[in-house]
């Protein structure tokens, strides 16, 4: 059992938890992920490591409530325990030797982008962070990003905070203004990563994306997380989750991500109804 030490609501649909998992905390690096199972009937879901404290033995996860499992997870509180929590899995993000980087995060993807920005910053790299949200209420990790970046830009779809527009608008402006990056690291919805990669390809800037497909075991056994990168089949769990953004087949990844959509919607509704009954 893995105890929840801290729980913080970041916005109405995104929650942060510090979980006691010393073995994971000891080894975790930005870009890696964990797999958890809330209870005995639960599904195994992958979540990227958002932060870790090696001394306290805790790992921070940040998740958006999108389905039955994250809904159940969100009903746990400080002092409660998660049944299974395994990791760190996957290959850590490559940050060595990078001097100037644009970190582009979208929505809850910012939770994954943040530890990378933080690590780059601590290594002395110049970090420009561009984060995008639908509106001001959904904004997360603003202070954290500011601390880890020399320049910080917020984009919102409705203009309720920062600038109105997409992260690609901000990135294009910077590139057009002559900013030259060793690498662009982008994490967020597939469609966003697709368009960031399309833009940076035009400018010839190396781009790394973090993929988060459906997984079962997370150790290379099931192959459910496979995707096509540069015409080759890769497993996100052992070959990734980071890949060359210019080589990923996003359309295939988007189709695969939608495989269980109907099932998930149904399971989510059922879980919500269950919790509603408990309240009444």
């Amino acid at each position: 059992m893995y105890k929840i030490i801290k729980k913080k609501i970041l916005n109405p649909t995104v929650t942060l938890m510090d979980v006691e998992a010393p073995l994971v905390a000891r080894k975790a690096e930005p870009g890696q992920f964990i797999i958890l199972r809330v209870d005995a009937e639960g599904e195994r879901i992958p979540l990227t490591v958002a932060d870790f404290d090696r001394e306290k033995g805790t790992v921070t996860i940040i998740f958006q409530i999108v389905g039955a499992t994250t809904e159940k997870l969100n009903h746990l509180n400080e002092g409660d325990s998660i049944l299974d929590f395994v990791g760190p899995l996957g290959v850590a993000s490559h940050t060595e030797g990078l001097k100037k980087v644009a970190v582009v995060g979208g929505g809850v993807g910012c939770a994954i982008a943040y530890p990378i920005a933080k690590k780059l910053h601590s290594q002395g790299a110049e970090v420009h962070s561009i984060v995008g949200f639908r509106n001001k209420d959904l904004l997360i990790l603003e202070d954290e990003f500011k601390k880890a970046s020399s320049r910080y830009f917020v984009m919102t779809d409705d203009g309720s905070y920062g600038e109105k527009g997409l992260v690609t608008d901000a990135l294009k402006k910077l590139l057009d203004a002559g900013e030259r990056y060793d690498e662009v690291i982008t994490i967020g919805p597939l469609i966003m990563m697709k368009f960031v990669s399309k833009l940076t390809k035009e400018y010839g800037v190396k781009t790394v994306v973090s993929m988060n497909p459906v997984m079962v075991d997370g150790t290379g056994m099931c192959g459910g997380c496979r995707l096509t990168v540069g015409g080759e089949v890769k497993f996100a769990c052992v070959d990734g989750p980071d890949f060359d953004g210019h080589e990923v087949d996003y359309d295939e990844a988007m189709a695969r991500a939608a495989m269980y959509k109907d099932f998930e919607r149904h399971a989510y509704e059922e879980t919500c109804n269950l919790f509603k009954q408990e309240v009444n």
Partner: protein
Amino acid sequence: MPNMSKTRNEMPTQAPDVRNKNFQEVALGYSEEQAIDEAQRCLNCKHKPCVNGCPVQINIPAFIQEIGKQNYEGAYQVISLSSSLPAVCGRVCPQEVQCEKYCVRGIKGESVGIGRLERFAADWHNAHPVEKIERPQLNGHKVAVVGSGPAGLTCAGDLAKKGYEVTIYEALHLAGGVLVYGIPEFRLPKAIVQKEIDTLQDLGVTVNTNVVIGRSISIEELMKENGYEAVFIGSGAGLPRFMNVPGENLNGVYSANEFLTRINLMKSYQEHSTTPIMPFKKVAVVGGGNVAMDAARCAKRLGAEDVYIVYRRSEEELPARREEVEHAKEEGIIFKLLNNPTEVLPNEKRFVGGMKCIQMELGEPDASGRRKPVEKPGSEFVLDVDCVIVAIGTSPNPLIKATTDGLATEKWGGIIVNPETGQTSIEGVYAGGDAVTGAATVILAMGAGKTAAKGIDEYIQSKKN
């Protein structure tokens, strides 16, 4: 006087059209009367050819004699001297190519039902628990076992009996390896696997789930920081192979590993499980081994109307246990033999819309000695399916190799060991099972676990002197 009946006692089973709708065990096991009657078919012959057919050399005539004498616990004890998982092996061993293949009774009739008798003895033992096993005196040496499949469980059990303090590390949330994520409930009830694991824990073995060796802890750290004098790697052949044909990443194409894990480990067929599995109607399983049969029979039980086994060779070459092939046929699985997939076709939603195949014919024997299948030109056709399960084998998981300096492996990934001791290229590190051989059987993995346990014991004892 031995029972000279040419045919063996039939195994009672659930009726095919009943069992293909549930996940309960197919074979129900011999009654006492049947077991005694079958035991009396054994001639107790002097040269015991059956024993040499057994990868762990169980004294088969001796345990069968005990069943004949109605000393069922005695029979179990005889098996236990050589095998750690009798209830498992009685169910999943390919007896027809091992012990039963060499049975003298098989020359002029059917061989003795050795596997069925093994299962009977093991089930009798499990149903009549003896007092708790006494824990052996600890000898002060610690050994780590990586993976809790048949190789790891056997190695751990043998070492614990000798007084070693053994810890098993398992990457998944549940111990048992392929016995829980791979082999379905209807062929190997999970309660039986759990019982074997409970027995190990009674012996003092610690099982740590949710630890991925190579990620959470490295082999080197196990030995240098955690105080293990030896490590056994039984991490299995985890990595699924795909066909490399167009359309293989469409929604609805699964590796057999994923399909079976969703069902067996995650229990997606049970109503309260939150792990999804799609309600497919027409399923093609590609491959002809036990895993392919398991996947096909699971698909049928999940409600698929048409389930096909698509295999490029003929019935004779099917690598699956004979009994599984028979059971699959009885349950309504359709065998499309001498056919090979060439493409998975999409529907408008990027799900599987069909599978293009080509007919094959058998040509000259290839390196494996089997006749090589060759394509019949112009014989392409489309099989109407909405799900494809790829069951064409697995390779060893590369994680441990990639994170362990100096661990020598074959080009295809198998860990290289000394077959006499199980030792790898690193002192104190041993390996066995599918991680060494590539996908093989439970009993061979068990045998490798035993060999390594002996090797580890000799290594640690020699170090002391």
